[in-house]
């Protein structure tokens, strides 16, 4: 385990270490692609763009500033957001397999986004705002439905019940998405393109929205680390030590819905990030959420950046969907974690 500060959280040098690792991976992801761009050219291009100066190699500058930087930033922010959500849900439900995709919350958010595209839901003055709002609302409603059903069937919210209901809910929601697609007329293309899920076309507006969502949602989740520790030990135990169980649960669920809704509305469903990264982080720093959430935040960003790098370079010049890479890694990890949790070793 990593060396920790005197209290329960990380010390400042550990955060510096995480930041250096993240910046290093960011740098590699900007440099590597169908065209390799040297670190010096990256610096030159960014500096010139910031100052508004003309550069001799306008092509490299346009690739870096207009395509790669917004993409890698969106990837890093999405990875961080999905991972911190996974870590929080796994703590809240005391279930190592809880995650936006396994719970069916991401599917719910997808349904909201598809409905918004099909029926042309818009927010005035904010392109893509309607899709985002619907995705967030449906993410929250899905969570309420899934947990409500799970509670009715099995009040201990066991791993098997949650996963089973998540699968059933996802199938149900996907069937509704298919019905919507059937009647979507000329919007089918837009919906299909969106459901493929990719962060390749991300722009600075997406980065800004992700940044705001992560600042709000991430801050809420980081504020509730002690409560998440109590929930991870047991909901009754949380109540007995003085946690306002209902209120805290609702606030955490809203924060998670905001984050998953925004991520899904921008990049589609990127499965398993929220499952794999917190688990790896837990093996590295332990289950205390004061360390687990920050580690998941940085780890999620790095994991998704590397997955995106693989997706871009593995079959170059062809590009894989980022979801294909995360699903491949995630499916293997899922089986491993499920096996561990059945043996009670997680």
């Amino acid at each position, binding site marked *: 385990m990593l060396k920790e500060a005197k209290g329960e959280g990380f010390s400042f040098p550990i955060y510096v270490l995480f930041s250096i690792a993240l910046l290093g991976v960011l740098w590699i992801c900007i440099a590597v692609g169908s065209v390799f761009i040297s670190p010096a050219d990256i610096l030159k291009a960014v500096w010139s763009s910031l100052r508004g100066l003309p550069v001799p190699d306008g092509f490299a500058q346009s690739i870096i500033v207009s395509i790669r930087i917004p993409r890698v930033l969106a990837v890093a922010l999405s990875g961080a957001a999905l991972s911190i959500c996974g870590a929080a849900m796994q703590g809240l439900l005391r279930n190592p397999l809880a995650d936006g995709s396994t719970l069916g919350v991401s599917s719910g958010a997808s349904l909201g986004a598809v409905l918004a595209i099909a029926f042309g839901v818009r927010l005035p003055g904010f392109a893509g705002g309607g899709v985002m709002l619907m995705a967030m609302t449906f993410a929250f409603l899905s969570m309420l439905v899934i947990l409500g059903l799970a509670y009715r069937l099995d009040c201990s919210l066991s791993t098997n019940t949650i996963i089973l209901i998540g699968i059933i809910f996802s199938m149900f929601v996907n069937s509704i998405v298919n019905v919507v697609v059937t009647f979507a007329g000329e919007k089918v293309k837009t919906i299909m393109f969106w459901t493929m899920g990719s962060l390749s076309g991300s722009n600075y507006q997406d980065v800004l929205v992700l940044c705001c969502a992560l600042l709000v949602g991430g801050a809420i989740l980081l504020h509730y680390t002690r409560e998440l520790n109590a929930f991870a030990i047991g909901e009754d135990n949380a109540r007995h030590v003085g946690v306002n*169980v209902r209120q805290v649960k609702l606030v955490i669920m809203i924060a998670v819905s905001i984050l998953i809704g925004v991520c899904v509305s921008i990049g589609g469903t990127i499965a398993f990030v929220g499952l794999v990264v917190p688990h790896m982080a837990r093996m590295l720093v332990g*289950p205390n959420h004061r360390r687990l959430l920050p580690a998941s935040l940085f780890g999620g960003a790095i994991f998704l950046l590397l997955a995106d790098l693989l997706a871009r370079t593995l079959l170059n010049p062809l590009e894989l969907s980022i979801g294909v890479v995360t699903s491949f890694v995630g499916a293997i990890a899922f089986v491993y974690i499920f096996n561990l949790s059945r043996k009670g070793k997680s």
Partner: protein
Amino acid sequence: MLEVKNLLVRYGDITIVDNVSFSVEENQWMMLVGPNGAGKSTIVSAISQSVPYQGQVFFEGQDIAAWKPVHLAKNIGVLSQQHYVSYAFRVEDVVRLGRYAYGAGLFSAGDDAEDRRMVEEALEMTGVKPMRRQTVTTLSGGELQRVFLAQVFAQNPRLLILDEPTNHLDLVYQKQVFGLIRDWARQPGKAVLSVVHDLNLVKAYGSDAVLIHLGKCVAKGETAQVLSRRHLQDVYGMDVYQWMNDLLCQWRE
């Protein structure tokens, strides 16, 4: 200290606890006694505000139904009979959570000197200090129960509620845990309310008892008085005294 008035708990149409009233005073160890399904655990769940109920529960004259969870935790601590821990938390992390109610404010910085002192004391009292850095998933049932006892001691409530605290523990741990609780209950301003099945333990440790049968209070008062031959015959439907004596005969050397 604690006054339970006309407590009524229903699950749908079924009445689990029917108009039960009793009180617990300072330095008392009140035992809730009765056969399986009598409603004892439901009574302690209602007092700890874990299930909805009718009637009133007063603590130092105040109705606790209106209390905030942190205020409740500072006054009433609960130790459950069993703990299922999914994640490998360290022993000291679990014990430290007992101080949640004292640092739960929005801008609270977390542990202060008092929190650390209470945690150290609780680790010491329960004998789990040597295993403070061990993960709870590696502990036996008895060790785990002592860790959660340390958590509730760190919480420093005035009333400690125990729901069959030694149900799954062997004799050594039973003796240890009951001894620790008795010492704790002797401190000024403290009291214990517990559900215990073993009538020998009730007699040995309880100062007072409430006998519950089919959700109703059959008898309350001093332990010896409540556990009379007639009361136990009525509730358990057998001569408990005779059976206990028969059992004890097996141990004569």
